[in-house]
């Protein structure tokens, strides 16, 4: 049976680490896949929350970020939704190109896509769903 968790976070980047740990603790079974979960999931979720707060909600302390987590037998899925107007993720340049590599920003979406198995934005661009599958790397 799937486990579900819904959080409403204040638009405060200081809450991100605690939120990631809270979600992590509520993912029973995830620890069997420690490597992918410790790195990929934590960093992927941190990026999604960071983008939502800083860019989606434009650092507005009055806004909030909704986090919906579903843990199934074969995967964990997290939808992060902000209250902003949305954006076009296709417009974000590749940070690994030579012209971009020494820039200090622009790696968030790249890392999400590199570390998670699926990254889907809604049409408006204010909600992203991250999926990490539990396959082949059980360490328990």
């Amino acid at each position, binding site marked *: 049976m799937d486990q579900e968790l819904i959080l409403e976070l204040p638009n405060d980047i200081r809450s991100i*680490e605690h939120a990631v740990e809270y979600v992590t603790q509520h993912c029973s079974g995830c620890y069997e896949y420690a490597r992918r979960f410790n*790195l990929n999931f934590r960093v992927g979720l*941190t990026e999604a929350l960071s983008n939502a707060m800083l860019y989606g909600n434009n650092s507005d302390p009055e806004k909030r970020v909704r986090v919906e987590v579903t843990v199934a037998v074969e995967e964990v899925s997290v939808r992060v939704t902000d209250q902003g107007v949305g954006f076009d993720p296709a417009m974000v340049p590749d940070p690994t190109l030579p012209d971009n590599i020494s820039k*200090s*920003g622009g790696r968030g979406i790249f890392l999400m896509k590199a570390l998670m198995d699926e990254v889907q934005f809604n049409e408006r661009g204010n909600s992203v769903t991250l999926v990490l599958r539990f396959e082949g790397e059980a360490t328990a």
Partner: protein
Amino acid sequence: MAFQVSKSGDVTVIDVEGQLIVGNRQELKQKVLDELERGERSFVVNFSETGYIDSSGLGVLVSLSKKIREQEGELRLASLNEDLRTLFELTKLDTLFTIVDSREEALEGL
């Protein structure tokens, strides 16, 4: 999470304990900039006690690297575990930084 600043001869060593992420990156930046302002030029950031780094954490390291180079200083990154190295490799930042296996190795020749 915390950043511990210590000295080893003329080298400033910053140990990153916990995460280096969007919520605390400015603290690390300010600590290094304060040391640069005091005249320090050789820096090692040690990740032996670090959990994970996000894109903001990587970004602040890029930014600090530039500022240190502008002052004719040097920054080395030490003790990245396999997961953290993966982040640098994925983003190709391993080509931008001097990355060494240990704090001791980082101190050699600085």
